[in-house]
């Protein structure tokens, strides 16, 4: 009846029990608070069933933030372990638990933090930037979010029921095959990514369509804000790369469920094929994350330098070049597999070519600042931190793109330092900067500036302390994923500094939460009264803050690249045309139901509960068919109501 599931699946060692208890406790705490405040109905009607891209975006960011905290706790436990596990001291984690923890850390940080923050920010601002009322397919957007949520829920379920994969965040076979990983850990990994991955693919389709079809009249592609370009290129990568992930995970799950031999070591199975396939998705994935961060920094640098973005055309070409190149470099993740020198040299050279458009972007940003009038508000300070860390990461990346050098650095701590350098210094810094930048547009008030400055300080110093020692450790011969090491190697002091660095990053995150709290307390003082707190350039700043649920009362028409900036400069009069009725999609719980069923299918396949898998799958299909036949239709908001609401907003602005 319950497949492989029985009481043995509950955690038994104290640290795992601690993790389970904190997760259950947190969930119960939130539920109790909602019940006490009588907010369940509100939550359901206003948020969970909403198809408003801005609300979906906020939900993405809330989930991603919670997952960031979980991923950081994993990181702190990992570095805490390596700080003390020298010589006779074996630390507080068993090697199996340590391996589950770094596998979970990588999986969560990439799929449920970075991807979540990215989709969150895109949802928040893309339609506003394009002068649109919503994304192209609002219902699909809700399905995407809830699939993301279901994947996240599945990863966290493994804390309580069963175990997580101990095979690393990319689960190379044969280690991840049944022979070496007979437990449910790898299955949790597969099905949470499979479900979240489908959500990502659907989001990709949604945002591409939004950009191509929903732009305001007059906004040609070359007049589109650069952030929209970065999203377009990133989403092109999503729709082409994620199917590869789906198929790869599918084949691995067939090996594990049905005993096929795609990636086994016998009967013609080929683990090397898996490594190729997973990186054929995995490398574009890195650029899926970083391109929107580039877009965010482009907007921020132009806004705070009070100057047009330098070399817009170059920037677009660079984005496209990076997107294309990101497909022909995947082999650099395994130069050491023994391919011939021609193959290795080709992929090495392709990799270093990516440095060219990336370097061009950096120079264009610096020349946007040049002859500008730079206001060093928080997002701009993040940009400075980004330039400093990202260029160091770029340098070590170029080094490792030379195969003969990579042989000495691959799978060492040097590599670990390099990719954290790119992911934290590039992606995370970019998304945090974007969050601060667009926060007033969504919530109607700015974040506390001074506390924010300390946040950058803690993140930057924490980052340097945590990761520069890892570069040294790599060159000392420390390989990644070691849960203990010999004391004669003289590594411990570097691991201790690294652990301190993680502590400083945690302090930074604590300050961020404090900043959020203080800002909410002082929201009246920090109120964004005119919708344009930073002297912005693009259309999202032409709406009141917080942006009304319909985004624009009258759809704007566009004549310039920096449309809003030009309007302010020419002191153009507001659009005097009459208000019109606005159609908005009706709320629906179908997204939650579909994702709930998908989550059940995943859980059932992990534990071999076949009836539940069949039921869930049928349920999904039934809901989809029902949704296709019975269209819930739109809500029409009459012109008079819009007018009244707009006047009220206007009055609030004046007062």
């Amino acid at each position, binding site marked *: 009846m319950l497949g492989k599931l029985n009481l043995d699946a509950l955690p038994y060692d104290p640290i795992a029990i601690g993790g389970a208890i904190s997760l259950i406790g947190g969930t119960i705490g939130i539920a109790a608070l909602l019940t006490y405040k009588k907010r369940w109905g509100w939550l359901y009607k206003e948020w969970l069933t909403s198809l408003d891209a801005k609300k979906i975006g906020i939900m993405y960011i809330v989930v991603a933030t919670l997952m960031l905290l979980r991923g950081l706790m994993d990181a702190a436990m990992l570095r805490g372990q390596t700080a003390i596990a020298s010589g006779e001291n074996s630390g507080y984690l068993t090697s199996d638990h340590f391996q589950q923890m770094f596998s979970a850390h990588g999986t969560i940080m990439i799929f449920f933090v970075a991807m979540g923050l990215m989709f969150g920010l895109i949802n928040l601002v893309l339609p506003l930037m394009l002068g649109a009322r919503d994304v192209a397919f609002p219902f699909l957007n809700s399905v995407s979010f809830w699939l993301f949520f279901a994947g996240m829920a599945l990863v966290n379920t493994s804390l309580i029921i069963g175990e997580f994969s101990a095979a*690393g965040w990319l689960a190379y076979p*044969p*280690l991840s095959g049944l022979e*070496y990983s007979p437990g449910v850990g790898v299955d949790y990994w597969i099905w949470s990514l499979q479900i979240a991955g489908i959500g990502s693919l659907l989001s990709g389709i949604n945002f591409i369509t939004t950009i191509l079809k929903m732009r305001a009249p007059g906004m040609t592609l070359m007049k589109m804000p650069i952030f929209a370009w970065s999203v377009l290129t990133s989403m092109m990568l999503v729709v082409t790369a994620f199917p590869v992930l789906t198929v790869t995970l599918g084949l691995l799950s067939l090996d594990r469920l049905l005993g096929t031999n795609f990636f086994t*070591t016998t009967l013609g199975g*080929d*683990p090397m094929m898996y490594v190729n396939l997973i990186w054929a998705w995995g490398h574009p994935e890195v650029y899926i994350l970083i391109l929107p961060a580039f877009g965010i920094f482009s907007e921020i640098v132009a806004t705070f*330098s*009070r100057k047009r973005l*330098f*070399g817009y055309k170059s920037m677009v070409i660079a984005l496209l070049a990076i997107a294309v190149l990101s497909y022909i470099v995947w082999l650099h993740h395994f130069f*050491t597999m*023994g391919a*011939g020198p021609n193959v290795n*040299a080709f992929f*090495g050279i392709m990799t270093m070519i990516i440095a*060219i458009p990336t*370097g*061009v972007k950096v*120079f*264009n940003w610096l020349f946007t*600042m040049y*002859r*500008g*009038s*730079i206001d*060093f508000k928080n997002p701009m300070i993040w940009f*400075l931190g980004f*330039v*400093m860390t990202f*260029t160091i990461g*770029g*340098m070590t990346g*170029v*080094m490792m*793109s*030379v*195969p*003969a*050098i990579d*042989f*000495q650095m691959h*799978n*060492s701590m040097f590599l670990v330092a390099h990719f954290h350098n790119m992911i934290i210094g590039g992606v995370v810094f970019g998304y945090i900067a974007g969050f601060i930048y667009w926060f007033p547009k969504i919530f109607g008030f700015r974040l506390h500036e001074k506390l924010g*400055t300390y946040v*950058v*300080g803690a993140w*930057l*110093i924490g980052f*340097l302390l945590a990761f520069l020692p890892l570069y*040294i450790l790599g*060159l*000392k*011969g420390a*390989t*990644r*994923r*070691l849960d203990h090491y010999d004391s004669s*190697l*003289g590594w411990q002091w570097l691991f201790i500094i690294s652990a301190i660095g993680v502590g400083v990053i945690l302090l930074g995150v604590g300050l961020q939460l404090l900043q959020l709290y203080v800002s909410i307390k002082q929201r009246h003082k920090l109120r964004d009264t005119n919708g344009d707190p930073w002297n912005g350039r693009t259309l999202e700043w032409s709406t009141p803050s917080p942006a009304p649920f319909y985004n624009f009362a009258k759809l704007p028409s566009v004549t310039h690249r920096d449309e809003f900036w030009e309007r302010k400069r020419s002191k153009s009069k507001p659009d005097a045309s009459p208000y019109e009725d606005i159609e908005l999609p009706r709320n629906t719980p179908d997204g939650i139901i579909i994702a709930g069923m998908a989550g059940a299918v995943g859980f059932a396949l992990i534990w071999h509960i076949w009836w539940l898998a069949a039921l869930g799958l049928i349920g999904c299909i039934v809901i989809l068919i029902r949704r296709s036949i019975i269209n819930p239709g739109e809500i029409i908001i009459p012109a008079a109501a819009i007018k009244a609401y707009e006047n009220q907003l206007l009055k609030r602005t004046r007062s």
Partner: protein
Amino acid sequence: MRKKTFLALLGGLSFFIIAATVFVLITGDNAVLNPKGEIAQKQFDLIVFATALSLLVILPVFALTIYVSIKYRASKKPVDYQPDWDHSKKAETMWWGIPIFIIIILSVVTWKSTHELDPFRPIQSTKEPLEIQVVSLQWKWLFIYPEYNIASVNYAQIPVDRPVKFVLTSDAPMNSFWIPQLGGMIYTMTGMSTQLHLIANETGTYNGVSSNISGPGFADMRFTVDSTAESEFYDWTQTSKPTLAQLDTTTYNELRKPSIPPNPTLFYLKEEDLYWKIMERYTHSSHKYHHGSNIKNESSSESSEHSGGHH
């Protein structure tokens, strides 16, 4: 604290941490930066070259960032503020051009060095290479010396200044074989035979590790390599063999069970073709499925030529 003071402090502290890192890298005993063999030395030279070349771009970026941040800060009311200045053919040509030029140089060096330092490529020397077969197990390394009928676990001895040809496979999840002071790594995989040509040009003891996760005991997959004078190496190979435990299929099957041996052990190699028998465990059954690369590796086992070993 005033924001300006704070930012200046922050920048200063950041540069201090970076400088301290560089100092430790240059002065400390860091395996990769302290090469003891020709291959590792050439890889070290490449690291220095690539770093220097990257710095040609990175240092100007750092300098420019600081310069424009100070000169064009709004509080200073920059006099040459030009809000519409958004392109310059000359400037953009320069920063497409210079990186392209640098990458062309690096590409040529990459192409040459990738061929020269291909792990499958025999090292040029007047001496015959010593062949050592390596098998990664859960969680230990087996070194087989077919010429001398000995085998050892987690220990290898090699003669100084004589090229060593490692031929490697796995009877466990994928591992990566790495002796940082002698040169870069290579993967070991079941049913595959990879090669790694290294040489030690100084006598000494070098650490070796697995750099790819292969299950719970992987952190202990460490081994040592002693580089000794040729005569000393010869003496070692002639260790009184009758007193040693024998390594044949039966004892090997015992050895391959997951374990972390506390000390290195030495065996008398009873089955000379043990390595290829281990390979066959994975390639044999795949014959009828025509797994091209496996068969190719197997058939090329006799010729140690560079091209044959690739998949």
